[in-house]
């Protein structure tokens, strides 16, 4: 058989191939030749064949049939064979291969070879890709070589030890004795690799770390010599002596000085020296400065040194070399938390980096800018950030928008500014805004009560311009649904009110429903908004028509909503105003994300309403028993689950109860608590999800109401709501009604609570309780219960009835504590 072609020949041939197919053909032919040559166990040409195989492997062709051949080459006596064999092993025989372990014996022998270059090959292979088993077997050999006086081998053994430790951390101990004199070496190669080894050991073991702390003075000395010594041609790089070693020493010093005052003290001077003396005209010098800065920031350095470090970073920011700028931004991002003021000084330079062409730099600059925003610089910074948002890549927009919202929320100087900022983001980058921003924004808008008119006007105008950006459309339709009345009445104070008719508004909302730019979610929003307007606008018939059309929509979600809204027009029309009432101020949920969406379940709603019908509250005779029953007894009993009713059915039921007490005739009654502060619904709104549900509007009383007093025709009922974010505050609304045939005038309600509570009584709706249940007097009591005790309240009533003054005392008690528990509904006893 003719001699296999030489490697270079093959390379040349393959390169002449003009197509991929041609190349493949050549390769297959050669592979076949190589395979038969391997089969013949040809020692002479094995090396050449494996080399060719490695070339073909690099081109992307399979070469696994050469694995065993590599092993044979390694075992050969010829240096040429070993060289190619080990190369092949490193390329083809990684630890995942079955035959990997077969190398172990060969490597072991070669580690003890008489020729240092063979030993070097073995050390290199072991140190690059030895498996854990192999490392375990050969660690002893490596350790032996670590102690040799041959610096060529010693340096390789050190890095091989690093690999062994990475693979088998338990073996670290065994290398400890050999590290004794490593730093006394003169040879830079050994020094460098020793420092790497020491670094690895210190990073992995706190014991090693404390043990090696004593090396700090020696390291400082070595570093000093490198800086102070004259020109050394062998290690010089652009005028700096062995920058690789300098950087590694600085890194080791960082680890050693990290939480240790003494070590940090000992390295202070040298760090200052390096920081001030290093030549910065070339990348090399900057590399060393960079490492120095990282070390200074990480150890317990004195403040002067830290300021020096930040100033170096500041200078880096102005460097023409964008790599340096990138590195500076990265480091500043790491230090902005700890040295905030120092970094603030460089704010304008950082903001300039937002305009850089490089993507990585822009991203870093953006992150850093957000970290630097505070109450003082918010206006200026936001201007820059918004400008950046307009022009940045789409990948950034989502993050930038979220960052803008967060910053605006934290530091907004005024509500108007806040709304304007949100508007700007929505109109320019509306489609990139994250989904969870929509509920957060809605909450924000709701809470800025005085800005409602302005907000809805601006959002309406934005909708007229563009309906393609879904988050913007969703927020806008929600707002129009809520505040449409303000829009048409032209109440805006902040800017020139626009003239809008109800029909125009409905046109826009209906337009959203039919547009194919709108997603199903958006359609849901607009349908709900249209429905809400039925109580705010007068063109109810038009709305009824729209709603009934969508009752047969293909989209199940829309269909369901439309059917329910239809039901509201027909059967539950008396409830409609209350249900569609203006949304009260929401609490910010402690988790920032939307919690479980409240499910509308059209079918269960009516039936649940029916089941709720017998109101559990009017048992005039067994009043005390009722109290105990309702409120769970007076001993340490389970706290009433007054959490978010996850079925609207129950909240519908509650409402029915409240209304049922007053008048069962079904006429639209104003919600009984309209005189006090708006009813606070509680958990239903702890996180609006995108499919905004109508029934969130309902004031869901967490605890069922109770009759506190019922005597002589005067009935006082308590209804409970959760107030502000403070779970210790109970808001009790009393409803006083009069079943006698004469009014009760000069009605005064007073209450007293034990010392552990605090009471706040707001003004009553009136002091005349009309006769024959023609109306109620309501009054709001806020009770603070920090110790979460059982509430006991003493009530004193005074009024004039039929000419005579009446006075009475009563006591009410019960547990009134809220625990948020979205899984359980309200339990009605």
């Amino acid at each position, binding site marked *: 058989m003719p001699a296999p072609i030489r490697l270079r020949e093959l390379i040349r041939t393959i390169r002449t191939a003009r197509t991929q197919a041609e190349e493949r053909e050549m390769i297959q032919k050669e592979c076949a030749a190589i395979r038969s040559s391997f089969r013949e166990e040809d020692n002479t040409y094995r090396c050449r064949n494996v080399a060719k195989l*490695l070339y073909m492997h690099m081109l*992307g062709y399979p070469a696994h049939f050469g694995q065993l051949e590599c092993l044979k080459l390694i075992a050969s006596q010829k240096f040429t064979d070993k060289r190619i064999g080990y190369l092949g092993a490193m390329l083809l025989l*990684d630890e995942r291969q079955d035959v990997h372990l077969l190398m172990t014996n060969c490597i072991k022998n070669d580690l003890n070879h008489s020729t240092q270059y063979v030993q070097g090959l073995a050390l290199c292979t072991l140190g*690059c890709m030895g498996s854990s088993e192999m490392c375990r077997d050969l660690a002893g050999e490596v350790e032996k070589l670590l102690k040799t006086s041959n610096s060529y081998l010693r340096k390789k053994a050190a890095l091989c030890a690093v690999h062994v430790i990475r693979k088998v951390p338990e073996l670290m101990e065994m290398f400890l004795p050999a590290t004794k004199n490593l730093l006394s070496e003169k040879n830079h190669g050994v020094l*460098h690799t020793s420092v790497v080894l020491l670094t690895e050991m210190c990073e992995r073991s706190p014991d090693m770390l404390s043990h090696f702390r004593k090396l700090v003075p020696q390291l400082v000395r070595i570093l000093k010599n490198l800086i102070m010594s004259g020109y050394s041609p062998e290690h010089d790089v652009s005028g700096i002596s062995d*920058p*690789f070693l300098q950087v590694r020493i600085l890194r080791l010093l960082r680890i050693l000085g990290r939480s240790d005052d003494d070590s940090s003290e000992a390295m202070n001077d040298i760090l200052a020296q390096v920081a001030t003396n290093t030549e910065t005209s070339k990348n090399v010098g900057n590399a060393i400065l960079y490492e120095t800065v990282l070390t200074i920031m990480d150890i317990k350095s004195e403040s002067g040194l830290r300021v020096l470090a930040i100033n170096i970073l500041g200078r880096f920011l102005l460097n023409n070399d964008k*790599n340096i700028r990138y590195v500076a931004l990265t480091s500043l991002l790491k230090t902005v938390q700890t040295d905030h003021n120092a970094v603030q000084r460089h704010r304008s330079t950082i903001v300039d980096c937002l305009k850089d062409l490089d993507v990585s730099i822009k991203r870093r600059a953006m992150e850093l800018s957000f970290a630097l925003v505070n109450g003082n610089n918010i206006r200026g910074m936001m201007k820059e950030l918004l400008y950046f948002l307009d022009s940045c890549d789409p990948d950034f927009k989502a993050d930038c928008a979220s960052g803008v919202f967060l910053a605006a929320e934290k530091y907004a100087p005024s509500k108007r500014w806040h709304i304007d900022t949100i508007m700007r983001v929505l109109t320019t980058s509306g489609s990139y805004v994250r989904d969870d921003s929509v509920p957060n924004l809605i909450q924000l808008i709701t809470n800025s009560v005085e800005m409602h008119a302005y907000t809805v006007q601006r959002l309406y105008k934005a909708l007229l311009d563009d309906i393609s950006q879904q988050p913007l459309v969703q927020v806008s339709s929600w707002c129009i649904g809520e505040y449409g009345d303000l829009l048409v009445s032209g109440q805006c104070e902040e800017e020139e009110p626009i003239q809008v008719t109800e029909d125009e508004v409905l046109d826009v909302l209906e337009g959203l429903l039919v547009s194919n730019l709108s997603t199903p979610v958006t359609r849901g929003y607009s349908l709900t908004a249209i429905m809400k307007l039925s109580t705010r606008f007068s063109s109810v018939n038009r709305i009824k028509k729209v709603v009934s059309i969508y009752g047969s929509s293909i989209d199940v979600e829309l269909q369901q909503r439309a059917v329910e809204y239809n039901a509201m027009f027909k059967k539950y029309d008396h409830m409609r105003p209350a249900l569609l009432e203006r949304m009260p101020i929401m609490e910010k949920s402690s988790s920032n994300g939307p919690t479980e969406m409240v499910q509308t379940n059209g079918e269960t709603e009516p039936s649940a309403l029916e089941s709720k019908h017998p109101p559990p509250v009017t048992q005039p005779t067994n009043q005390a028993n009722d109290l105990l029953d309702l409120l769970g007894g007076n001993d340490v009993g389970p706290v009433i689950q007054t959490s978010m009713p996850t079925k609207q059915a129950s909240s519908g039921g509650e409402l029915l109860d409240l209304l049922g007490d007053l008048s069962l005739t079904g006429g639209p009654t104003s919600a009984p608590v309209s005189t006090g502060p708006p009813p606070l619904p509680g958990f239903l709104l702890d996180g609006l999800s995108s499919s905004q549900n109508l029934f969130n509007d309902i004031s869901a009383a967490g605890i069922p109401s109770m009759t506190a007093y019922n005597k002589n025709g005067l009935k006082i009922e308590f209804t409970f709501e959760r107030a502000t974010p403070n779970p210790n505050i109970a808001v009790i609304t009393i409803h006083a009604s009069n079943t006698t045939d004469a009014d009760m005038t000069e009605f005064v309600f007073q209450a007293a609570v034990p010392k552990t509570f605090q009471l706040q009584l707001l003004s009553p709706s009136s002091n005349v309780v009309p006769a024959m249940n023609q109306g109620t007097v309501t009054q709001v009591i806020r009770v603070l219960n920090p110790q979460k005790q059982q509430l006991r309240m003493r009530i004193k009533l005074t009024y004039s009835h039929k000419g005579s003054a009446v006075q009475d005392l009563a006591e009410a008690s019960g547990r009134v504590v809220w625990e948020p528990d979205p899984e359980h509904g309200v339990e009605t006893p």
Partner: protein
Amino acid sequence: MRFMLLFSRQGKLRLQKWYVPLGDQEKRRLGRELVQTILGRKAKMCSFLEWRDLKVVYKRYASLYFCCAIEEQDNELITLEVIHRYVELLDKYFGSVCELDIIFNFEKAYFILDEFLLGGEAQETSKKSVLKAIEQADQLQENIDFQMRLFPAPS
């Protein structure tokens, strides 16, 4: 360092040194994707990028891209110096190195790299020492009369 790749402007791999154990398929896939990402970058962009969960440092020398994936704690700027040192070594060895030298003598490129880096870290910071070691190893190779004899290792 996790790995080093050398590739041409057309995306052809000229050298790949992996210091982490990965399957063959994975290496090919990773390599291909990273190469495409880097080739897609404009000339004026900085030499560092965050790709997947890696820090990548790359530099172009004539028609060859030298690309390293480094650890989180590694210094990017000094990695540029490492790359430069390797190029200098190749240059000294081949005498004004060009891509063709590396294509036709890929195994030598590997040998030089293995004398400069071991397990991803620099083992020798002196240019002279690295080149001397290569030279002597080459001599060993060429000396076909020099037969390895099975001596017991000197203690």
